[in-house]
């Protein structure tokens, strides 16, 4: 295992070094702008998305009945991650007036359909597990 670790590490460092070399060969303006976007991406996750998830978790622990919590969490994971993945599509930021084939579907309606399906399925699963466990809930 030590040899494997060492090899992985060395190959990784080489690839990393090559990547940094490629970065340094970019236009200075491109490099600075890309650096800004990278730092922004980390900030957006670490200081916005992740704390928001912590807060949502705290709120759920307080307001959501125990039997419904797993379902709420699962629906949150599915809807939350899918929404972030589909953000450029849902926002249609890249749409062009003279391109009728780009970003041309009813994404908002489908998103509503997806979200409501997830909520209904989550609710059914939660109710079934509540009945199965015979709990009365809080």
């Amino acid at each position, binding site marked *: 295992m030590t040899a494997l*670790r060492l090899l*992985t*590490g060395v*190959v*990784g*460092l080489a*690839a*990393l*070094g*090559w*990547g940094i070399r*490629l*970065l340094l060969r*970019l*236009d200075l*303006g*491109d*490099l600075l*702008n*890309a650096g800004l*976007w*990278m730092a922004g*991406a*980390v900030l957006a*996750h*670490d200081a916005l998305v*992740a704390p928001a998830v*912590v807060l949502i*978790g705290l709120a759920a*622990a307080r307001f959501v009945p*125990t*039997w419904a*919590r*797993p379902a709420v*969490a*699962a629906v949150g*994971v*599915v809807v*939350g*991650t*899918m929404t*972030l*993945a*589909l*953000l*450029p*599509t*849902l926002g*249609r*930021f*890249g749409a*062009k007036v*003279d391109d009728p*084939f*780009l*970003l*041309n*579907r009813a*994404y908002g309606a*489908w998103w509503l359909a997806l979200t409501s399906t997830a909520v209904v399925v989550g609710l059914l699963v939660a109710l079934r597990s509540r009945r199965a466990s015979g709990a009365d809930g809080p």
Partner: protein
Amino acid sequence: MRVPDESDVRSHLRSPEVAARVGLWLGICFAVAFLTGLYSHALQDPPSWFVPLRRPVWSYRVSQGLHYLAGTACVPLLLVKLYAVYPKLFARPPWLDRAALLRHGLERASIALLVASSLFQVATGLANSTQWYPWAFSFRSTHYAVAWVAIGSLLVHVAVKLPTIRAALRADPAASGPGPRAEGGLSRRALIRTTYLATGLVVVSVAGSAVPWLRRVSVFENHFVPSGGIPINKTARRAGVTVLSTDPGWRLEVVHGQRTASLSREDLRALPRQVARLPIACVEGWSASGEWDGVRVRDLLALVGAPRGSVVTVTSLQPDGPFRTSTLLPAESDDPLTLVALGLDGDDLSIDHGFPCRLIAPGRPGVLQTKWLARIEVES
């Protein structure tokens, strides 16, 4: 106010068992995206030793479709992976032990590179697939450079964490670990399965633009042609060729040294024809197949006495833009399926598909299938 530490965000879900399992799939998706990305980059910027794959004719369609879908799959996987390790962000550095502090600092730096480059790659790739460019840097060269940083820092991370990863993969996720389990919350196994479900759903919901039989369920695909034809990325108007391409005086110039052949559309039509079913596969991930009707490039080159297997530059009527010209490598220019297409699916080529004629060849990225041809020139 006190600085938060690891215990403030602790949960039984933020555990190595979750991180290792989700991370394994994330690593696989990164590897697929990296390798297919390298291939696509080499096609667009070929090193001297590079030989493009021309058969099967759909090779690039599969490779770029995989690139796009692996990248999309990374979103749920990456978010849950980061969720599982988030408390580490608040770990207190071992201030008193210098050697430990140095190790801690190095690991933090490598993780910072890994997280920054991963988020950057996934976000810029997804935005690019919808033709959204909110940044000022050039997409391809930057996405390519940062890909090396991401894969390199990922390998370093795997090397550092290998014992933890192996232990976590062997451990039962249901076993208790650090952190309290919120009363009634999701189990680790359920979180892992939900993550896989979200990943599968998001991939299927966009895959139709690359996988035709999924078109009915892929309600979030970015390029959709209701009639099932081939999408268009750059219209004639946006390329600024509306007047030039419909000019009756248009001629295709085929040039080899001093010899030039000047061919009208009628001249081209009179040459031996080749009909071939070839896909157009865009770097943005979509692809579609069409039946192209045209003239072999190698027959055109023979008209001006060019030796077989020449390197050829094709030039568009477009006045500018990075894809005004493209290069055919020797094997490509000699390929019997490398065509100057005059028709598509039984009709004349439409102006947005490249009228009067366009290049279409097996296994090339869409941006290199030059439209509105003006000139085909043999490089000396």
